[in-house]
C-alpha cells in the first residue's frame, strides 16, 4: 500500500503547489485547514519550505538551491537582504545574533524563521536575480553539487559547470521527474581531486576518459546509490557506464526515470535508490536502464581518475578549498573558512560587496560549509586579504576552526537529538585554545550531526560526532557517539563508531587525549587518518578516554524539549508560536 505521503503527493505536488502557497500566504496562517497541515507541509518542501520543529509552528526553514554552489554576481547581496529583512526569529542566537544565512553541505543556503505571509515577497526578490527555492527539499531532483571551483581550477580535467547547469535547466520544474519516490541527489565532478563527493550521492558523474572511434574522449563514469542516512551508509557504486558531456543529461534522466518507476513507494525508509541498488546489484540496474530507459547503446565505463583523488583524503594535500589559489586565467580564488557554515546577514552583505570590489562578484559555496570568492585580480589580492572581514572568515584558519562542520540540530530540526552549531563553535574555540595541533596537521575534520540522518556527513571525517543521549548522575544529558577513520579519496572509508554515548562536555577532552596518543605513537610522517587506519576496531575502542575539562557546555540539558534552546524562557509552553505575519502570537484554540 502506498504511504500517506504518496497519497498526498498524488493529490497535489510539484509546480502546482506554488499557487496554493501564494494563496495561503495572502490569507495568513489560519487559511491552511487544520486537518490538512501535515499534507500541505509535506508538499511545501518541494518549494524549499520545511516547517520548523515543535514549538516553532508557523515558521519555516527556507532552502535556496544554488547549483554547484555558484552564486552569480549580484545574488549574494540579495540573499543578505532577504535574510536581514525576513529571517529573524523571536529570540536571537547567542553566538550568531539575529538574521543569519547557513551555507550547507550540499552547497545550498538555508534561512530560518521564515513566515508564511512573507514568502511571496521573498520569492519575488530572489527570483528577480535568478535564485530559486524550487525542489530544494522534497521528493525530486535536489540541488546539484560538484567541485565548487569548476571552471576555475588548475587541476581541472573537464569543466563540469556547464554540465551541472544543463542538468539544472533540464530537471528543475520538469514535470516528468517532479514526483520521485524520495529525494534524488546528484553530483557532477570534473576535477581530478574528487571534490564533488560523488561517492555519497544518489547519482554521481565522475571524471573519466574513454577511447571512442580511436580518439580519447573526456567525459564521466556513472555511479549510483550513495548516501549516509539512517545508519545505512553506502558509497555510490559503478554501473559500468561512460558518457560524454553531451550524453550526461540523457543518462541522468534515464536513471531518475528508473528510480521513479522502481523506487519503493510503500516504505519511505526503504525508498532511496541505494536500497534498490542493494537489492538489484549493479548489473541488473544497468540492464534495466539499458532495456527500458534509454534508446541508445550505453557505453562501458572509461578509465577513471580515482587514484588521483585527494579531496578530504586525510593527507592535508587538498582537504578543502580554503586558502588562496591561482586560477588558470591568472586571477585567484580565495576560500574562506566559515565556522559551521553560518554567517550573519551584515557579514554576508559585506562579503558580497568585497566580491564585487575585488573579484567578479561571484561567490561559491563549498560542501564543507565554506565560501569562495572567485576571480580576484592578482594586483588587488593583497588588498583583499587585508580586509577586516577576513579576520573572521579567514583564508588561513586555525586547523580546528577550518575543519569543523555542523548540521542544524535542535535549534530548528524535528529529527534532532542534540544541539549542534553553537556547541561545535564552542568545541572549536576550546580546542584552538587548549590543544596543541600535531605537527603537520593543517586541517582537521570534525563533523557533528545532531542525529543519524547525517546532514553534516559525520561518517567521512577524522572525528565523527553523532547526537545521542546518556545519563550523568542519573540525569539525562546530551551526548555523542564518536567515530574515527572516515574520509574520501581513492579509498573512501566510513568511520568506525568507537566510543558510544559520550556526554557532550567530555568530547573535547576525548579529542585532546586522542591527539596526544596520536602525537606519541604516530610513525614518521603518518597522517591522522593513516594512524587510525593502522588500528583495528578493537584497538580504537578505548584508544583515548573521554574526560571533563575546562570546557563548559551550556546545552547539556535536553534542548529538544525547549521551544528554542537559547531563550531565557525556554519552556515549550513559553513559545510564541504560531504567530501571525507580524510575529504576534495567534490565539490558540485549546
Amino acid at each position, binding site marked *: 500500500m502506498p504511504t*500517506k505521503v504518496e497519497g498526498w503527493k498524488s493529490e497535489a505536488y510539484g509546480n502546482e503547489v506554488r499557487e496554493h502557497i501564494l494563496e495561503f500566504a495572502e490569507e495568513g496562517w489560519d487559511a491552511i485547514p487544520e486537518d490538512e*497541515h501535515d499534507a500541505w507541509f509535506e508538499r511545501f518542501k518541494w518549494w524549499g519550505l520545511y516547517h520548523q*520543529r*515543535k514549538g516553532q*509552528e508557523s515558521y519555516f526553514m527556507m532552502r535556496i538551491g544554488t547549483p554547484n554552489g555558484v552564486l552569480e554576481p549580484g545574488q549574494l547581496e540579495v540573499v543578505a537582504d532577504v535574510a536581514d529583512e525576513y529571517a529573524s526569529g523571536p529570540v536571537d542566537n547567542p553566538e550568531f545574533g539575529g538574521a543569519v544565512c547557513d551555507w550547507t553541505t550540499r552547497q545550498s543556503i538555508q534561512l530560518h524563521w521564515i513566515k508564511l505571509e512573507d514568502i511571496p515577497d521573498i520569492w519575488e526578490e530572489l527570483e528577480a536575480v535568478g535564485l530559486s527555492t524550487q525542489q530544494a527539499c522534497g521528493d525530486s531532483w535536489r540541488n546539484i553539487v560538484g567541485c565548487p571551483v569548476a571552471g576555475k581550477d588548475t587541476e581541472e580535467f573537464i569543466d563540469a559547470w556547464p554540465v551541472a547547469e544543463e542538468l539544472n535547466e533540464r530537471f528543475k520544474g520538469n514535470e516528468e521527474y517532479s514526483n520521485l519516490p524520495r529525494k534524488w541527489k546528484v553530483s557532477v565532478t570534473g576535477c581530478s581531486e574528487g571534490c564533488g563527493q560523488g561517492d555519497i550521492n544518489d547519482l554521481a558523474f565522475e571524471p573519466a576518459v574513454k577511447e571512442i572511434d580511436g580518439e580519447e574522449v573526456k567525459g564521466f563514469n556513472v555511479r549510483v546509490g550513495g548516501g549516509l542516512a539512517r545508519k545505512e551508509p553506502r558509497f555510490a557504486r559503478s554501473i559500468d557506464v561512460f558518457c560524454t558531456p553531451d550524453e550526461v543529461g540523457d543518462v541522468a534522466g534515464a536513471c531518475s526515470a528508473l528510480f521513479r518507476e522502481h523506487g519503493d513507494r510503500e516504505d519511505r*525508509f526503504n525508498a532511496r535508490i541505494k536500497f534498490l541498488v542493494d537489492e538489484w546489484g549493479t548489473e541488473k540496474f544497468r540492464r534495466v536502464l539499458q532495456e527500458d530507459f534509454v534508446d541508445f547503446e550505453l557505453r562501458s565505463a572509461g578509465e577513471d581518475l580515482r587514484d588521483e583523488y585527494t579531496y578530504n583524503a586525510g593527507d592535508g594535500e587538498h582537504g578543502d578549498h580554503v586558502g588562496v589559489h591561482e586560477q588558470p586565467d591568472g586571477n585567484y580564488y580565495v576560500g574562506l573558512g566559515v565556522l559551521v557554515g553560518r554567517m550573519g546577514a551584515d557579514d554576508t552583505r559585506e562579503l558580497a560587496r568585497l566580491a564585487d570590489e575585488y573579484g567578479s562578484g561571484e561567490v561559491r559555496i563549498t560542501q564543507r560549509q565554506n565560501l569562495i570568492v572567485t576571480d580576484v585580480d592578482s594586483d588587488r589580492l593583497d588588498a583583499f586579504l587585508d580586509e577586516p572581514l577576513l579576520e573572521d572568515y579567514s583564508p588561513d584558519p586555525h586547523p580546528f576552526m577550518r575543519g569543523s562542520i555542523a548540521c542544524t540540530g535542535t535549534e530548528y530540526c524535528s529529527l*534532532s*537529538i542534540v544541539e549542534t552549531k553553537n556547541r561545535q563553535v564552542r568545541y572549536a574555540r576550546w580546542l584552538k585554545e587548549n590543544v596543541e595541533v600535531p605537527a603537520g596537521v593543517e586541517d582537521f575534520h570534525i563533523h557533528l550531526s545532531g542525529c543519524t540522518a547525517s546532514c553534516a556527513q559525520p561518517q567521512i571525517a577524522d572525528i565523527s560526532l553523532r547526537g545521542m543521549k546518556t545519563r550523568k548522575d542519573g540525569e539525562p544529558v546530551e551526548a555523542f557517539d564518536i567515530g574515527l577513520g572516515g574520509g574520501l579519496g581513492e579509498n573512501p572509508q566510513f568511520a568506525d563508531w568507537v566510543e558510544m*554515548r559520550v556526554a557532550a562536555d567530555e568530547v573535547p577532552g576525548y579529542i585532546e587525549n586522542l591527539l596526544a596518543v596520536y602525537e606519541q605513537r604516530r610513525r614518521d610522517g603518518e597522517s591522522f587518518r593513516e594512524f587510525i587506519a593502522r588500528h583495528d576496531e578493537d584497538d580504537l575502542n578505548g584508544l583515548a578516554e573521554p574526560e571533563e575539562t575546562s570546557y563548559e557546555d551550556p546545552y547539556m540539558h535536553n534542548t529538544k524539549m525547549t521551544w528554542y534552546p537559547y531563550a531565557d524562557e525556554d519552556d515549550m509552553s513559553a513559545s510564541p508560536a504560531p504567530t501571525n505575519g507580524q510575529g504576534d502570537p495567534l490565539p490558540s484554540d485549546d
Partner: protein
Amino acid sequence: MVTSVHQLDDGAWVSVNDSREVNVSDLWQLARSDFCGCERADFLAEGFVEVSAAAGRVEARIAGRCIVCGEEGVTDWLELGRADPEAGEFRSVVPESVHVPDRRRRLATPE
C-alpha cells in the same frame, strides 16, 4: 471521529489529527521488554517506524537505543497516548514513566 495518525519527516514525530504530538529524542523507560537484556531499558527514541490508532489509542514501534547497554533496534508496540474520540484532543503518556511494550498490535485496524 476517526483518529488520524502518521509519522512524518522520516519518523521525527507522530502526528495525531494533524497536530504534532510525540517527538524523537525522549527517553522511554521500558519494562518487561525483549528489546535488550536490561531489566529496565532506558530507551532513546530516534525515529517512529510504524504507527497505529484505534478507538483513540495511539501506538507506535520506535527505532532507537537503550542508553544503558547500547542495544539498538526497534521496539514492540508502545502506547503513545490517547485521543479523545469525540473532540480528537490527544493526551500523551509520560515517556519517563514505565512502559511495557506489546509484541502484538492490540488493535484491529491499522491506520
